[in-house]
């Protein structure tokens, strides 16, 4: 790992250790290194020994806000490390009354974007990488006795490429220096490309994509807007989905999953990152964001918990996507 990441980890550890050991928080949600060097998994730290494992590097993609819903059942007060997208996810959960904000201490970590192992493999050009070093927006991939340097942008996770808010909003304490503002990237281009196709071509595209779905529901588990205590996919009465892998049921699951996030999705891309078979789930979410913005005015979910989501309100003179004559 890069030197500066070690420094950052120590700095973060120093701040959160004070709060955790003094009893201000009962639990800290952070990241630790996983089995492989390119994995950082969630860390549930309760004492000094746990904190030693705390890591902050370029693989901390997992959204920790999602764990608050469960952890707050057993802990009075929880501290959580939040990247830009995670902070908006926290706002989402607060707005849904799933997380009482006063029982959370949010430590903000400005995020330069997380790296994608698949892209690193590609950058290593056939060799198995065994580590990376980062400097000035460049990533050096080491592997098989060779070092290859690529621009950081090229090996970013898909979800980080279109990130507009790398600095956490509404956090209690900002632990590192904010990263610079991003340029507004065009995030709807894939959606527009799909829209330009005919109905049949679009259906064929989605049929092909969704046929891979295993219905493991990883997209739902990773998602900050999917916080229902009982999800429709597991409901017994009425039974909406069976256990069979059927094209129509895959459609039903994905359309309704995306639709439940209409006007609520913060576009963090965790669903797509969590998907083991690489279904472009963000396209469905972004389609809804794009349409709702077009029809009912621009709305950025998760930025301001005080602002009402567009589908929970109305104006008498609203336009409609169907004929109203």
């Amino acid at each position, binding site marked *: 790992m890069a030197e500066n990441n070690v420094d950052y980890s120590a700095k973060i550890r120093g701040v959160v250790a004070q709060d955790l050991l003094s009893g201000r928080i009962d639990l800290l949600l952070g990241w630790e290194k996983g089995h492989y060097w390119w994995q950082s998994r969630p860390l549930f730290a309760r004492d000094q020994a746990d904190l030693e494992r705390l890591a902050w590097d370029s693989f901390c993609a997992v959204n920790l806000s999602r764990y608050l819903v469960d952890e707050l059942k057993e802990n009075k007060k929880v501290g959580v490390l939040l990247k830009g997208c995670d902070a908006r996810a926290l706002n989402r959960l607060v707005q849904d009354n799933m997380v009482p904000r006063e029982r959370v201490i949010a430590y903000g970590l400005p995020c330069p974007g997380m790296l994608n192992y698949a892209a690193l493999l590609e950058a290593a050009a056939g060799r198995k990488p065994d580590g990376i070093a980062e400097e000035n927006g460049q990533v050096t991939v080491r592997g098989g006795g060779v070092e290859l340097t690529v621009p950081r942008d090229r090996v970013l996770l898909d979800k980080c490429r279109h990130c507009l808010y790398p600095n956490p909003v509404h956090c209690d304490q900002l632990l590192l220096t904010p990263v610079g503002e991003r340029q507004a990237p065009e995030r709807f281009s894939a959606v527009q490309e799909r829209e330009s196709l005919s109905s049949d071509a679009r259906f064929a595209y989605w049929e092909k994509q969704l046929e891979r779905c295993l219905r493991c529901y990883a997209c739902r588990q990773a998602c900050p807007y999917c916080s229902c205590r009982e999800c429709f996919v597991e409901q017994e009465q009425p039974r909406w989905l069976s256990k*069979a892998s059927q094209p129509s049921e895959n459609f039903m699951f994905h359309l309704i999953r995306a639709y439940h996030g209409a006007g609520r999705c913060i576009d963090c891309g965790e669903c797509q990152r969590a998907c083991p078979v690489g279904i472009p789930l963000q396209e469905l979410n972004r389609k809804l964001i794009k349409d709702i913005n077009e029809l009912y005015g621009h709305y950025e979910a998760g930025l301001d918990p005080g602002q009402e989501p567009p589908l929970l309100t109305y104006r008498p003179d609203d336009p409609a996507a169907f004929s109203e004559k």
Partner: protein
Amino acid sequence: MSLAQNRPKTEAATAGMEAAAQDRAWEPLIVAFCCNWCSYAGGDLAGTSRMQYPSNIKVIRVPCSSRMNPLFILRAFQRGADGVLVAGCHPGDCHYSTGNYLVRRRLSAFKRLIEFAGLEPERFEVRWISSSEGDKFSEVMREMTAAIKALGPNGKLRDGRWRKIT
């Protein structure tokens, strides 16, 4: 059941039945979710006024158009519907004051989403029909049936285990 019905069909008989099935013109199945207070009453008015509308429409009464769960719509398509219509009170006339204002936003988003997934726009419609508009009720039903007939049977979003597409 008589023995004759249990007996395996001869080849000639099977061929005859297939020919008969092909002769029989395909008729679309359209599910119309009508709000209890306006559109369902509008349908009643169309009936009591002896107005004609196609029998392809199967009406399901819902307490308000905002009762519509998008799962109902997808379920209808899964189980054999060729078109789905949601009909409610005109905006501003909702029995519950705001139901149809809210559903206008929700179903607009949902309509565009299922079109994005590849469904033809004509297959899912939303219309406002008041209880005094029996003529509009029958006209909407005729229009919708004609549009779906022109499109042909729907195979998209259909559950393969449920009904074979003819």
